[in-house]
Structure formats: C-alpha cells, structure tokens
C-alpha cells in the first residue's frame, strides 16, 4: 500500500527502515520513528474512533499528549492495553491496534444513532434519567451505563510484563526538554549541579524541532541535538526521553513515568516495560511548554480538523501531510508557520485570519510566498461526516458578533489555532498560585509554593530570545545556590521572527437558523449548548459546571478544552475569566498505567512472606498453609483424603488423648531488659508484676489508654533484670511501638530497653497428657516433674547439645510446654521432638486444631480481643489489679464499662448438637422479629468440640453473665441460617483448670 500522504524530503523518520503494522485488521506500512498516528495519516487513514457520547467519527486532533481523539486498543506481544493515544505510541514492527467505542466497526457504528438522538442526551442526561425508578438501577441502568462507558477494554489476563520503581535524588529536576529546559539544564549542569532532564516524547528539543529559528547560526534542532549530546556525556546529568513527570507532590517529590520498552515489539529480558521514578529534587524547573488551543466553530470535531501546530509537527517531524487542500484558521501569527510549511511542500493553503490585519514579519513572508490570506474571515462550520470535505466560511464583523454572506469552499483539512495555553499543571499541583495573564488569555504560574520555577512558554513567554536568556540565568542561579560554583555560560545569539498580537477571539457565532454542534471537549462530547444549559439550570461554580457537563473530565483532562470552557462561562455570566477561576489541577498529568503504579509489588512480592525454620519440614509432611499476618503457618497436616475438618479434628483429639506438637515460632517475642523492667511491666500490664520470681512466667493483659484490651501473652523472668515477653502474632509490631512510646516519651526515667526477638527464637508447643513423658525423654538431665517444673515454671535446659528454654505454659488447656531454641536450631529441635514423640503417639497439629483446643477451653484470642472489648467482656477482669495503676486503668471506671448488663464472653451450643454456627452470626431472642432485629451479641469463634463431639462456639453477649442456660437464636443472613442455641459457660472443657496443673 502506498503512503499517499508521505512527503519525500522532510521529517526525522528513518526511511531506510520500513515497518508493517495492522489497524482494524488491515495491513499498512510506516517508518521507524513514526507514531501510530503519523503512520496512519501517511496512509490516508483519518477515521480512527468514535466519540464517547454521540459516537461521532473521530480522527486526529493533536500530535502528542493532548490528543483527545485517537485512542486505540493496542495489542503487543500477546497482551492488550486500552486507552493508548495513537499520537504517543511509537510504531514498531508488527504493531496491532483497533478502534474503540464503536460496534460493529468504526465505519459503521450503531451507537452513532446517539448523534441523531442528541436532543435527548443533553448535559446531565445521566443524572436526570437514571434516577428513577429506583428498582431499575441494578438490572437496567447500571449495565447500560457500564456498556456505554469507557473506551478500551482492560485485559482480564494477568499482566506478564515487568514494571519497576526507582528512587532518585538530584539538585535540579527539569520537566521538559524544549528551549527553556535545555538551556536551564545546560547552565546548571555546567555549574556542577546534579541534573535530571526529562522529556515525554522520544525526541528531545520540544518546539525547537519544528520552529523556524536559528541559535548561534544553527537550526533549533541542531542546537538542541548538540546540547543533548553534551549533557548525555556528563556524569552529573541524567537525561531521559519517553519520560513524563506527571505529579508534583509534597516536599519537592515528583513522580515520573518512563516508558522504557513501550516502543519495542516486546520487552527485552530483564528490562521493564515501564519504570516509575520517585524523584526528590532540591529545585525543580518546569519547562513543560504550552498547548495550542482550538477555536470553536460548527462541527469542529469532524475528522480532518486538527491543531495547526500538530499539522506542522506531522510535516516537519514525520514528513506527513494531514491534508492536501488545507484551510488554516487562526487568530494569531503562529499558524502562519504551518501555512508556510505547507507552501514549502508544494501545497497551497488558504489562511483565514480572524484579525482585521497583521503586518508582522511572518505574515509578510506568507504573503510574499503567494499564500492566499483572508483577514476578518472565519470557518463557520466544517462539512463532511467521516472526513472534512469542505467548509462554510464567512467574513466576520469587527465586534465578532455578525457573519456576512456564507461561502462554501472545498478543503480536506482545517488547521486551527486559537493561540497558546501554558501547561501549568505541575506548577499548580505543587500548591502554587496561578494568575490570569490578559495578553495571552490564559493562566500562568504566580507565586510558587515549593522550590520550583516555571520557564518559557509554560510561563507565558513566547519569544525564544527571552526564554533562552531567563533559562540560562535561572539554571546558573539555582545551581550556584546548591554547588557554590560560579561557571556561567554565554547566552547564545538567537534569530527569530517577531510576532504581532493575537486576536481575543475563540468562538465563531452560529449563523441564523443553524444548529451546528460546536464542541469544547472533544473526548466527552461537551458542546457549547451543554454549558449554556448547565448555566441555565443554575450551576455557577466552575467545579460544578465541570462535573455536571463532564467538561474536561475525559482521559485528556481537558488539555485542549478547559480554557475555552472558562471563556464561555465567563461570557454567559458576564464576568472575566479570572473571576470564574479554573478547576483544580491534580496528578497525574497524563494517564499512568496501573502496572507502573503497582511496580514489583505483585503476588508474593506485595508483602514479605515469613517462614519458620521448620517450614521445609511442614511442607514435606503435607502441611496445608494459611496466612497468619505475614507468616505462613501450617493449618493442618493432610493425611490421605482428609479435608480441613477431619484433619483438624484428628489432630485436636490426639492432643487431648496423647500429645501433639505445634510450631509457635510466629508468636511475637520482645526482650525487656533493665533495672526498672519489673516496674515497667507493672505499668504496662493490668496485673501485678513486681513479685514475679526469676524462673517463673505469668500471663498478662495490656490495655490501650481507652481501656480496650490491646494484647495478651505470657512474660517470663529469665533473670533478675531480663524478661522475655510474648505477644500475639498479629500484634507483635504494635506492642513494640507501644512499649517504645511509653519508654521514650512518657516515662523516660525508667531504665529499660526493649527489642524484638521474634526472629531469634524457634518455638514448639508440646501439649497433651503425655507431654511430660515426652519432655523427660527430650531432656533426660532436667527435672521436668510437676515439682521440678511446675505450671508457669521456666528452666533453661540442654537438648542434645543445643541450648533450649522450656516454659510450662498452655494455650490448649492441656498439660503443655513450649520449647524455644535459637532459630538456627529450630529444625533440629522439631525433628528430635517428632522422632522421640513417636513412642508417645505424637502428631503435629496446625492452627485449626490449635483454635479448636483454645475455643473449647474458653481461652480468648484475636477474635475476642478485637479492639472493641474491655477485660470484663472477655472474662479477664480477674487479672485487673485494684491496687496499682497501669495504662488504661482510669478508663475502666467509665459508666458504660460498668453497666450491670455489660456484654461478656459465653459459650454457645446448638440445641440439635449438630449444626455448626457460622462465625459472625448474631444472637437474637426472636428469629422472626422485625428488622432490624435487636442484636444481643455475636459469635466470635466456632469449632467442633472434640471433647464433647458437638459444635461449640464462643460469643460476646449482652448481660452474658446472667444468660447462662437461656435459649436464643444464632442468625446468619449471610449463610441464610437460623440456629436455636443454648448459652453455656465459656469454659466447656476442664472448667477448673486441673489439666494444666497436673
């Protein structure tokens, strides 16, 4: 296929390298250095999509990040990506893309019927229509909106590409490599500053690539190339292309998205697709340039209507013509560069200039080239449906209110220029103020809030000479403050054409009797009439008008539409633009892929996975693991065809009957050391600690200052000034921070140190009636008799040459011990226990059996200590000292905490002794009560009691103390279950606690 719109001798693409690609299934060719947009235009393809609301045909409007139309679905290396801007996507061999928002095809789109129904789809249509009737929402409205909304389709597959994050620091971060960016980067780098220069396009140079200027007798592009080459060779400079700085956050942290391999057919091995940079900069230079804004006229969204600057860029960078019969419609001088470029390539443009006259250098040049210029002329409306075929033009009166006789002239594109809008997004995101600059009809940065400066056309400066001067000066000045060096550079000599004033004209009036749609926001189909309607309906704040009409809310975030919208609102309201104000600029400046935001934090990389030293043994012995915080713990050890229920039941039964061993390495452990350790514990825990002898453990409960239980666990006095504290697995980190808070800030006079030792010790709980016999065999030289090692006793002992700590503590309610060894010896300990345990019918048990054992014993855990319960609620009030003060004690005097019918821990058994009660079920009196049925309590934990062989649950129940013996109902709407239950004591097994002391 011939590239009919490709020019021969102009452009920066590599004509030596031809690339094939497919668009909507059809094969085309382009060149290396093309974007998908330029390659399609070269092939005469101008219809690439359909608009959001009316499904009107869409072509190309810009040539870069501001593109509102050409959004495609991209297919690359077996993956698909929605919402890709064709103007930014570089061409690679084998690229495939499809149009979005059209069905069955872009040429014949059924949704386009909306275009003819548009009187029924005004601003706020969705708000007005889908409100009523309410019952229609889920089944009819929502599916409809979901189908209609959005452009592309997100892949449901796992993204196989690699995305990375990087943290970087620099003296000067420069956003944009146009003249101001290059000049400030060069001046600062030469003065010794560490500089990062970021350019979102593949090519450096910004406007220098297309403007007709000379710097030090070189063309703008040559000068830019030389500066970039020199900067790249400097060790204190990082230069990045395809890198968009999209967010300016607090304390001069900016985030940049680098499209590392998006321009290649596939990512190279070990290379990410995209990389997100978090950059902390001492100073920031915002040299983000400006975006041309359109003039609003009838059917101004027809494919073939493009920005004049984009038409010029397509010619000068890509060697591509957007049309062969161009109309250039402008209110200023800059579009004449586009007209002249057409002329140089043997195309005859017609210039319509809304101004009455202009005698600037560039207009004179255009005239001398013989270009047809019609002053005081405007485009009234574009004609043609899928591509511009002609346009209605007219002479306009001086006050811009009236049109003279309308003429139709043939054309195939309309290059429009309504002057320039500085890209102030980053400056505004940093928290800086903006001000309206009358001369340019646009906002520019005012006082900056953070350490940043905005230069060049982003600051409303449109002459190269002034831009280069201030940028060289600023780059030097900022770097001098940081480096104290004094190497300034000579400012180069510039030659450029002087421009005359632009015309404050932005919207062509409708001719009498015509109802052309005049669009402001091209992606969201917001027309002049929509804004007028919103104002008529009473919307005044620009933020409200924006949300009601969706002006500027599309993926391009109104880069080409916002200012014209503001002009319109201020015209209707008879205000000036600064009085209307602009909507808030928020990051990201351009859409950022979810993959880049997530980076490497996916799957197992999203959080650390902590494994006990015995993990491999568990794995080999058919453990089924469960996440416990960041730890992996065996939930049960599968035998044969067992499921969770059978296996955990077998394991728990074996503990009650023989002996079991459980990996308890994950418990939090904190060393508390120092002469004041006992006093500190006495303040932290609710019970008394001053008299705990060396070699003894004690169970303790700690509260928050508001009286809520924070955590529980045993703490053992290892030696005079050394305590070993244990916490629950989940609360370990919080408890350490809590202790540090009190030691460092509240009681700094206490001579105590705390440090986490969770990782240093491996733990095994040995529980069951035969546990002492097993222990004696493991530690033949240690007296582990009931007298030698009584309940809550502690000894240090020798485990076949390895130092071990034995704590006689029990969570299962059986005679039990916990053995700790240094982590490196954990597996040795475990294998010894398993080996010797064989004689005692020992089985390992997992967290599920552990839960069963503690639940039927009425021991509380995280599901009862849930951040809503005080000691009384969980039956721990016996551990609250009346004599001494401690953290949170004063709160326990609260009236609500002392009500007679205060909630309390109880046991719950189903009357049929068969039906398990779902955790989270509510306890109610009347199962048929009117909703909301008064809730008396909730089921906190459920198990199959192995002792009684029936279901058993724990619950926190209002007036639980006096409810023992009463009959209630457990209701779980989630599981659709209602179960008749009896309230019993929470101590369902061994209520006197004899076994642990046996």
């Amino acid at each position, binding site marked *: 296929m011939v590239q009919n719109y490709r020019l021969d001798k102009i452009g920066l693409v590599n004509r030596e390298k031809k690339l094939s690609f497919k668009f909507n299934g059809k094969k085309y060719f382009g060149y290396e250095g093309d974007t998908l947009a330029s390659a399609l235009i070269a092939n005469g393809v101008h219809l690439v999509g359909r608009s959001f609301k009316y499904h009107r045909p869409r072509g190309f409007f810009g040539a870069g990040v501001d593109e509102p139309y050409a959004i495609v679905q991209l297919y690359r290396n077996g993956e698909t990506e929605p919402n890709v801007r064709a103007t930014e996507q570089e061409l690679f061999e084998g690229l495939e893309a499809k149009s979005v928002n059209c069905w069955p095809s872009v040429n014949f789109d059924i949704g386009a019927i909306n275009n003819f129904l548009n009187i029924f789809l005004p601003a706020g249509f969705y708000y007005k229509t889908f409100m009523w009737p309410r019952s229609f929402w889920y089944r009819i409205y929502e599916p409809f909106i979901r189908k209609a909304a959005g452009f592309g389709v997100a892949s449901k597959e796992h993204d196989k590409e690699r995305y990375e994050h990087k*943290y970087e620091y620099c003296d000067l971060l420069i956003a944009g490599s146009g003249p101001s960016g290059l000049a400030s980067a060069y001046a600062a780098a030469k003065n010794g500053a560490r500089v990062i220069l970021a350019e979102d396009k593949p090519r450096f140079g910004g406007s220098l690539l297309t403007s007709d200027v000379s710097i030090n007798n070189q063309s703008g592009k040559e000068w830019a190339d030389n500066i970039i080459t020199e900067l790249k060779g400097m060790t204190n400079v990082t230069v990045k292309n395809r890198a968009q700085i999209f967010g300016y*956050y*607090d*304390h*001069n*942290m900016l985030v940049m998205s680098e499209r590392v391999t998006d321009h290649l057919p596939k990512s190279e091995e070990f290379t990410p697709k995209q990389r997100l940079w*978090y950059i*902390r900069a001492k100073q920031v230079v915002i040299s983000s340039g400006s975006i041309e804004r359109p003039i609003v006229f009838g059917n101004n969204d027809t494919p073939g209507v493009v920005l004049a600057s984009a038409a010029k860029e397509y010619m000068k960078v890509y060697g591509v013509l957007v049309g062969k019969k161009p109309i250039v419609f402008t209110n200023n001088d800059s579009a004449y560069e586009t007209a002249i470029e057409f002329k140089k390539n043997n195309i005859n443009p017609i210039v319509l200039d809304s101004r009455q006259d202009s005698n600037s250098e560039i207009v004179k040049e255009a005239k001398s080239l013989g270009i047809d210029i019609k002053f005081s002329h405007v485009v009234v409306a574009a004609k043609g449906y899928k591509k511009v075929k002609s346009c209605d033009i007219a002479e306009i009166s001086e006050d811009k209110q009236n049109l003279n006789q309308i003429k139709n002239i043939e054309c195939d594109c309309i290059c429009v220029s309504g002057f320039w809008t500085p890209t102030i997004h980053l400056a505004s995101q940093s*928290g800086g103020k903006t001000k309206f600059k009358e001369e340019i009809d646009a906002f520019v940065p005012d006082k900056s*809030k953070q350490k940043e400066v905005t230069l060049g056309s982003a600051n409303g400066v449109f002459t190269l000479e002034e831009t280069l001067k201030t940028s060289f000066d600023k780059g030097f000045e900022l770097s001098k403050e940081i480096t104290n060096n004094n190497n300034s550079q000579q400012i180069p000599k510039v030659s450029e054409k002087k421009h005359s004033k632009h015309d404050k004209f932005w919207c062509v009036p409708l001719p009498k009797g015509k109802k052309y749609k005049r669009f402001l926001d091209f992606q969201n189909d917001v027309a002049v009439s929509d804004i007028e309607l919103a104002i008529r309906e009473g919307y005044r704040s620009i933020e409200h008008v924006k949300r009601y009409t969706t002006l500027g809310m599309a993926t391009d975030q109104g880069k080409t539409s916002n200012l014209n919208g503001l002009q319109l609102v201020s015209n209707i309201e008879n205000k000036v633009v600064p009085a209307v104000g602009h909507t808030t600029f928020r990051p990201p400046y351009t859409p950022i892929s979810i993959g880049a935001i997530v980076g490497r934090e996916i799957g197992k990389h999203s959080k650390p996975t902590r494994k006990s030293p015995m993990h491999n043994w568990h794995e080999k012995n058919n453990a089924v693991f469960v996440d416990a915080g960041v730890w992996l713990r065996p939930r049960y050890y599968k035998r044969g065809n067992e499921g969770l229920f059978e296996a955990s039941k077998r394991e728990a039964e074996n503990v009650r009957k023989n002996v079991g061993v459980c990996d308890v390495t994950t418990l939090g452990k904190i060393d508390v050391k120092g002469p004041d350790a006992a006093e500190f514990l006495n*303040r932290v825990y609710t019970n008394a600690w001053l008299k705990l002898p060396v070699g003894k453990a004690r169970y303790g409960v700690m509260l928050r*200052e*508001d009286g809520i239980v924070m955590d529980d666990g045993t703490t053992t006095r290892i030696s005079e000034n050394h305590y070993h504290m244990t916490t629950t697995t989940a609360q370990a980190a919080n408890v350490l*921070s809590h202790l*540090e*808070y009190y030691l*460092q*800030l*509240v009681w*700094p006079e206490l001579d105590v140190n705390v440090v986490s030792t969770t990782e240093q010790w491996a733990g095994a709980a040995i529980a069951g009636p035969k546990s002492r016999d097993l222990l004696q065999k493991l530690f033949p030289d240690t007296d582990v008799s009931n007298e030698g090692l009584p309940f809550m006793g502690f000894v240090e002992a020798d485990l076949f040459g390895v130092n071990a700590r034995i704590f006689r503590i029990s969570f299962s309610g059986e005679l039990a011990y916990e053995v700790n060894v240094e982590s490196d010896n954990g597996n040795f300990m475990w294998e010894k226990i398993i080996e010797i345990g064989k004689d005692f019918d020992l089985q390992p048990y997992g967290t599920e059996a552990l839960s069963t054992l503690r639940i039927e014993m009425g021991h509380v855990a995280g599901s009862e200590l849930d951040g809503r319960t005080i000691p009384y609620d969980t039956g721990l009030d016996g551990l609250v000292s009346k004599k*001494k*003060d*401690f953290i949170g004690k*004063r*709160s326990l*005097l*609260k009236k609500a905490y002392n009500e007679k019918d205060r909630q309390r821990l109880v046991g719950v058994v189903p009357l049929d002794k068969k039906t398990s009660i779902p955790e989270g079920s509510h306890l109610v009196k009347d199962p048929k009560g009117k909703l909301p049925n008064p809730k008396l309590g909730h089921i906190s934990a459920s198990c199959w009691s192995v002792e009684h062989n029936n279901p058993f649950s724990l619950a926190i129940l209002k007036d639980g103390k006096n409810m023992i013996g009463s009959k209630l109902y457990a209701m779980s709407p989630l599981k659709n279950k209602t179960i008749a239950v009896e309230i019993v004591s929470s101590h369902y097994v061994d209520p006197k606690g004899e076994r642990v002391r046996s």
Partner: protein
Amino acid sequence: MLYIKCPHCGLRSQNEFAYGGDASVKRPELNKEISDQEWDEFVYLRKSPRGKHLELWHHVSGCRQWIKVLRDTSTHEIFNTYKSEEKVG
C-alpha cells in the same frame, strides 16, 4: 510524600515513619486522682489546628525513635524536628 529530618538519622522519606499525633499531650501521672473530664480530654480530645502543629512521628523503619516534628498542617512545611527528650519552644 513528606521529607522528614530525623534528628538521629537525617532526612528520610515519610514512608519510613508512622504518625503519632499531638506531641503536646501529656499523660496524667500514675496514681493521681483525676476527674472524668480531664481523663476523657487526655484520651479522646485533640485539637486539629490549621497551621503550626507539634506532633510525634515514630521512625519505625529506621532508628525506632519517637521524634517531635513542628509542621504546618495546611502547607506541610516542616519548621524543625526534635529528639523526644528535647524541650520545644
């Protein structure tokens, strides 16, 4: 993301720290008779000033020290940072 100068470690990004609330709150002394109102004020009531605020931050992923930070709550400007034992103002 804030850039906080830990008085022990130097400038570090906010994600190394945990916020700890108003640093001017003083815990009532132990074993002291105190009214319900005074206690409730200590436990629950915090000012939420717009402007300068002396607050606690815990350098959890660093030196594990609690530090004081004088910060403007509306602009996020950090005027100074202090060790836990330093008197401020």
